[in-house]
């Protein structure tokens, strides 16, 4: 708008027509008219400079008249947000619904923010029945199976003298170093020969195994005595030997407790556990000391018993309650579930359920309908379509046998589902609190460093309290020297202890320990 140059002429024109009035008033009027442009300019400048406060007032006015608008009501659903339950973090939904477990309204969060996952679980996701159907995911319960490892090797028939018999047919078979654990004395062997294709195999028994291993071929030799040697076999003949050894007989499976003892009436048959903290196991109903969730009641399966042990010294165990660990200086033994396997059988996970990334092996366990937890497992050598489980899984768990690939891919595509991938490690959230420097001066030696790290895993409030308390009232050890100190509430006071083991002692005799 450029007419400012002409501006002065318009107001100036009425001036000559009104010359008759009083000169003072007239002069004032001239001044006012002449100044009008200036005044308008000033007003405009004032408005512009105060625009922010004006807009604030306007907002206040609008809000007070019309009330606040619905907060983002139209765009609550967007592809980069999801809804989760703060109480059951596994429940994640794309829609603002209620939690299927605790019936609380889900909370919106941005996708990609890491969930804190329970110990031992590297990824977790909740899939709706529709998505499970879409991906063709199938689950099946884990069970014990009589798995056997088969060794196929070749050997040469010889005639030898043994202790019992002067001359029997012995087959000298080559056994690879790796297979030595799978060969035991007295093990049955089946022998076949291509020359006698279609014939029923000869039976044999492993008689002895050479202790030395060839440095070149990494093999040793086992001798199989052919039971019903007849004329068909002759020395120098090459035969194929098939040795089968039950996996259950082999370490580490053989040391897993087997043959469950009979259940006595005193044995507790149900326990209370925290779904997110597997180490928390109580015989009475209560709450988890970590997150205050109500403990879940679990009935023990036929093959499960309760045992007592010291978490500091795993070798100290007991069959019933009330024992103490002498090595710890009187720590009460904690209860745990011991899985007994049936004789001759081991826990087997189907081959299709196992995902091998090269660095780790994962199995997806369906912990609730539609909820899949990625569990890192350790398995033994493959036996047909199954792998024997060394640790990581329990009988009765449902594992994804079909579609495990897709579940795994989902965790990789959606980093918030997986703590282990993409570096979003557990504990990183609370570990990055701002209160790091509020504590005492950092200790210098390694132990102190360890303590500091352990304490860093606590929430800032707890950390401050733990730093104030410094030592465990039961053992007198520095807090944090055995990992993050657990928090116990006794007689209305919050106390930190060095490890879970001290909790029972403290609860039993609070006055003794809390004197200090």
């Amino acid at each position: 708008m450029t007419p400012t140059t002409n501006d002065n002429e318009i107001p100036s024109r009425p001036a000559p027509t009104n010359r008759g009035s009083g000169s003072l008033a007239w002069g004032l009027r001239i001044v006012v008219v002449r100044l009008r442009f200036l005044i308008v300019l000033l007003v405009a400048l004032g408005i512009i400079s105060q625009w922010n406060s004006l807009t604030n007032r306007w907002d206040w006015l609008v809000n007070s008249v019309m009330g606040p608008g619905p907060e983002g009501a139209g765009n609550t659903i967007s592809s980069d947000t999801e809804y989760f339950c703060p109480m059951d973090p596994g429940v994640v939904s794309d829609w603002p619904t209620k939690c299927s477990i605790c019936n609380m309204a889900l909370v919106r969060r941005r996708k990609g923010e890491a969930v804190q996952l329970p110990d031992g679980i590297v990824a977790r996701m909740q899939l709706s029945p529709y998505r499970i159907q879409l991906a063709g995911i199938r689950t099946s319960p884990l069970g014990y199976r009589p798995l056997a490892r088969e060794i196929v090797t070749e050997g040469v028939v010889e005639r030898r003298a043994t202790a019992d018999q002067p001359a029997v047919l012995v087959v000298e078979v080559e056994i690879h170093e790796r297979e030595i654990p799978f060969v035991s004395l007295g093990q049955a062997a089946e022998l076949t020969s291509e020359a006698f294709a279609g014939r029923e195999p000869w039976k044999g028994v492993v008689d002895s195994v050479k202790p030395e291993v060839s440095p070149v071929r990494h093999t040793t030799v086992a001798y199989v005595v052919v039971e019903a040697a007849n004329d068909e076999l002759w020395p120098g003949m090459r035969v194929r030997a098939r040795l089968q050894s039950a996996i259950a007989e082999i370490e580490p499976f053989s040391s897993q407790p087997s043959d469950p003892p009979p259940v006595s009436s005193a044995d507790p048959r149900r326990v209370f556990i925290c779904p997110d903290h597997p180490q928390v196991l109580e015989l009475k109903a209560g709450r988890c000391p970590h997150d205050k969730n109500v403990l879940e009641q679990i009935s023990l399966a036929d093959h499960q018993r309760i045992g007592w042990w010291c978490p500091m010294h795993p070798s100290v165990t007991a069959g019933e309650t009330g024992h103490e660990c002498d090595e710890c200086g009187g720590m009460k033994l904690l209860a745990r579930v011991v899985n007994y396997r049936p004789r001759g059988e081991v826990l087997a996970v189907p081959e299709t359920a196992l995902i091998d990334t090269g660095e780790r092996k994962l199995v997806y366990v369906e912990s609730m309908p539609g909820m899949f937890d990625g569990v890192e497992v350790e398995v033994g050598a493959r036996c047909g379509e199954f792998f024997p489980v060394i640790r990581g899984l329990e009988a009765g768990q449902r594992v994804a046998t079909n579609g495990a690939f897709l579940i795994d891919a989902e965790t990789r595509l959606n980093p918030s589902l997986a703590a282990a991938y993409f570096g979003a490690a557990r504990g990183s959230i609370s570990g990055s609190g701002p209160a790091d420097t509020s504590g005492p001066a950092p200790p210098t030696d390694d132990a102190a460093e360890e303590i500091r790290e352990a304490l860093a895993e606590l929430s800032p409030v707890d950390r401050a309290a733990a730093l104030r308390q410094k030592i465990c009232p039961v053992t007198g050890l520095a807090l944090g020297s055995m990992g993050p100190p657990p928090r116990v509430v006794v007689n209305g006071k919050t106390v930190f202890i060095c490890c879970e083991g001290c909790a029972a002692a403290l609860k039993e005799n609070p006055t003794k320990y809390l004197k200090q």
Partner: protein
Amino acid sequence: MIERTIEFSIRNRSLVIAAGMALAVWGAYAVHHTPMDAIPNLSENQVIVFTDWMGHSPREIEDQITYPLSINLQGLAGVKVVRSSSDFNFSMINVILDDSVDFYFARQQVSERLTRVSGFLPPGVTPYLGPDGVATGQIFWYTVEGKGLDLGRLRAIQDWYVRHQLASVPGVAEVASVGGHAIEYQLDIDPRRLAAHGLTAGAVVEAVARANAAVGGHVVEKSNAEYIVRGVGWLGASADGDDISKRSNRIVRDLEQIILTAQGGEAIPLADVAHVSLGAQFRRGVLEHDGNEVTGGVVLMRHGENPLEVTRRLREKIHELSAGLPPGVRIVPVYDRTPLITSAVATVTGTLVEAIVTATVCVVLVLLHFRASLVIAVTLPLATLSSFVAMWTLRHLGIADVQTNIMSLAGIAVSIGVLVDSSIVMTENALHTLHGHFGDQPVRGDVRSLILPACRTVGRPIFFSVLIMLISFLPVFALGGIEGKMFRPLAFTKSFALVAVAVLAITLVPALCTLFIRGRLRGERDSWLVRGVIDVYRPVLDYLLERPAPLVWFLGVTWVVGLAPLGWRWIFLAGLGAALVAAGSLTRTWLGCCAVIVSLVLVGLIADRHIKPLVWQSSTPLDEGMVMDMPITVPRASITQSADDLKARDMVLCRFPEVDMVVGKAGRAETPTDPAPLDMIETMVNFRPHELWPKRKLRLRDAQRQTAAILATLVEDGVVEPPANAATGAELVHEVVAESLPRFDGIMREVAYQRNADLEGDLPNRLTEFTVQRMVRMLQRQGVLRREPSSGELALCMRAAFAHANHHLAMSPALEDVERLARHASHELMKLEFIATGGDPFEIQDGWFEQSLGFVAALLGRPPATFFTRLHADVVAEHRVLWRKHIGKLNTELIERGCDAFTRVTIEELIARMTACDPQTTEYLAGIRRLRAQPPKKRHSAHVHTHRRTALVPTIAVQPRIKALQERLAGEFRRWALLVPSETVELAGFEGELDRALKMPGWTNVWTMPIQNRVDMLATGVNTAVGVRVLGRDLDDVVRASEEIAAVVKQVAGAADVVADPIRGKGYLEIRVDRERCWLAGVSVGDVNDVIETALGGRLATSTVEGRERHPVRVRYARNWREDEESVKELPVPVSGMREVRSEGQETEDAQRFALRASRSYVRLADVASVRIAEGPATIKSENGLLRNYVRLNVRGRGTLEFVDAARRAVTEQITLPEGVYLEWTGQFEHDARAARTLLVVFPLVLGLIFLILYWTYHDLADAFLMMLAVPGALAGGVFFQWLLGYNFTVTVLVGYIACFGMATATGIIMLVYLREAVAKAGGLEQMTPARLRQAVLDGAVHRLRPKLLTEATTILGLAPMLWATGTGSEVIRPMAAPVLGGILVADEVIDLLLPVLFYWVRRSRLTPHHSSLDS
């Protein structure tokens, strides 16, 4: 000069008119011969160098092929960048060239360089150039399907018959096979048996190769005749002649009988050591059609061809080929560019026709002279045609290759208003002059001498205004990159059309005026329309000339409101300040001043707080009328997994009633233009025509209303406790609607799908019936039938035809199907002796009219119509009719069911979220939910008794109260419910219905469109809004850096979909040779490599010769030996050297035995190498020789440029890059930023240029300013309109502004010309008093009103239809039309009112010194 041209044209009008007609004919020819594509080719000018190296890992390919090739390809003329990617099996190098470099020249240059480089590559590896098509050249997909034939057979038909035939069609660059199983003969060796005979795999390969050959033995002469000797040793060529049907079995048998010579010298047959079978080759691609695996092909068009023409030829060829296919096999076209192109052209042509009609109607209404309107109506199409002539000429001269596409047509469409403007002004002025001369008398005699001066007056300004519009469009030519490619065609056509109009306006229009302006002319006040406007306009202008405050206030308000959506606070505040000052100082009273200020501030506040600023966006891609579902998963996906998931997904997609057909591909087609990995699926979703979409959607408003009603009833009836307060209630309704609508959609979808499936099952029979009836009637009309068949006889014919009806009829009846049906039915007729057996009953006998029509069609290159094409057209029409009827019926059913379904779903959802009064209700619903939450029943392991489980489906007793309530509510709903068909936008895209239905775990959905996707696939750059390019020397560093960047960027507000391209994640089975152990065992590394290659990968021994087909024979180890890492560890490796093992000093028996064993000829692979599973790169990308990775992301809810600044800062602060790694920020924002920058620089320059031209023309600074005054007005109006219609800033919108500014300036020029002329007429400024000046200004402005009204009406009415254009290409036209429309509306106000006022003031101020000098 202009005057002289006009004079010449008027004098030699017949010549000019003849030239005009010639131009029209030439234009028609040019239209027909310009290549027509839907979308401009946005891909980069690139040459693809492709190298196959089967079985090698990306790292090997990168090191041995890609790196040497890419560094050697640098430095060619015009090369911008060399980007490359190394994948499993192949290397792909994109040499990206400057756009100015000729495509074929570049190819030649690259291939010359390749011949030199080949020496650096491993032996046997040959790089080759990709086909000479462009990325948008994939114009046609087809599948080869057949019942009863396996995928191997179908693939052989595709590979050896269909493919080569289609590749011979002119204009086709390449036909690539995809999917199916290419077959091969597999020899699976048992290495143990091989070892037993002392043989190696190499010996087997050699034996096989030698066993397959044919030799020549010159000739034998026998009784003076010559006989050629031919030794046939081909596999499968048996001694007793050829029987094709069993050839493959025979080859297998022949292979088994190949003789190997064992170590001991005995001859053993190959069958002893290997298992021979016919199997599938290693597959890297799967094709799928509607949930069934098929095989097919992809056709790539040659560079610069006409896609319409090529597709037509392809379809013809397919029709010809179909006859030679085995029975039951058919070629089904599944993707075709033609409908897209025709619909895009139809959209724009429709707009053009609308504009021509509106312009003509306006002219008739305003001028009340029909013949004059003809003059105007002729120029519009003629200008359009001449722009085609210009394109054709440029193309043939080889200057510029401007193609017809949606953009170039849109260029003409947006300039329609301008195109008629010049002729309107010219004609109107002639009318005015003649009316002034003749008054109400009819015009007669030669009026040339009268028209000439009239035309001369406006000729110059018209020419100038067009020139200025041309210049104002220059910035569009300055755009580079993708925007340039997108908008340059538009700028070209628009400029051509403008030039044409400028020329026509001073040649043809004056010539036509002298001819057409005849009869009685009407004055300005004769038209009620013009009269009414003048009656309002004149007093208003009269008032405003002295008291302009209201006008300034009004413009100030427009200005403030218009600037608010810009989102630049300081510009907004400056605008507000200027408006305040101008309006405040122009008011006469204090009260007025206060009122003006207060009202402006109020308007400013409202605008500031309640107008959401527009953000800068990337241009929306053109809608291609179909969507592509392109999900990706992790790179570890195997072909089996991908194929399974592809089928599962496509079956879901098929169940949408709107979807006609889906064709999916996982992995790649065998062409260098398709680098898709296996973890990527591309599914093309073809929709049915829009009219066949069932009405199945409930509008959100209705859903909310019904939910609220249900809530109220539930509370009223005491089923649930009332919500705490109204706000919770409203929130509850909102939440429930969000949950229940998707569920409702799912139910309705299924219902509609089932009904559609019913129809599809029914259609073949109904169509067959129709075909037979129709055929009989056509034959009857031709007089071929001896008598009319009775119904019984007709039934017989139909039965003959029914046997050949197939389900393809239901999809889309193909010509060959109809032909087959008709032929079979006619055989029956012949049997019944209706038709004489001699002669062809299907020969058509046409009348002379049809014959001449056929002749014209043949001239245009159309195939002649036959009996069957006519019958086919009828059947297709009937197909359409049946469908339409069905949809009508379906819609009534849907609304019936929909009301029930929605009510039920909502009741459930509501009660679930509230406290029910009756605990039984809660329990009942919880029971239902539990039941639904269970995944569908499946068979668990054996110990669960399945039959008992299925018998145990719990039944939940229906609660009578709920049931009654539901029925009542549904009944009420039915009374007012209205369902609508879904929109494409609702279906496709993120969070669309398709997306929600396809939330498959493990797959990330990506929605795109076929052509767009092609461009993206071959674009090696970033296809998201923002991308961070991480370049480095070490792959691990690059990966780590990009992951860190992704983590940091994710935290920045506005970041969405942040993905660091996953380089790693492919599973590797790594075999690392341990050289020390090799030495100990006496194994050479070469032997180990051989074992790995032969045992796992297999080695090609030879190729069979089976007629036209060739199939490879591959030798590898039996399956047991390559199952997993355990079996790989057991692979036997031959020992080449013998090594004596002696223990130091002692020679025990055992040591001897070990030595003996060591001398055995094989060791296990694990003994000489470490075998492990690892993760490695799936693809290695590099750029100019450096390794590269991208972090891709989109920006939501924030300006992209602002976001990039913030993200860049965050990355610099938080990340320390490893050595040798550096970053570049790129992405579409770069294009946008560049476009914005270019426009920001060029645009002021152009404005300055226009100003200079105006000044030079009129030698008056003030007038030049006044003419430019419309530009800010147009800006404000444009922005406001843009905001109103909800378009964000894109390059498209900016182009609209550019067009708008030119038009506004041009209108301003014409107005000023009229004003100046009026002043000149009144005797010039020298003899003027203010009163006379005022009168002159009023007269001039009013005189301008009529043509102004015309141009405004034609412009606005011509543009308005574009705003609601819906067809293909509308998403380009609409945002472009929005600012033009708004800008013109406001600019016209400025020109109509403000311009005369300011003109008056300027002139008056010049008057004053005159007066003062006169006074003194």
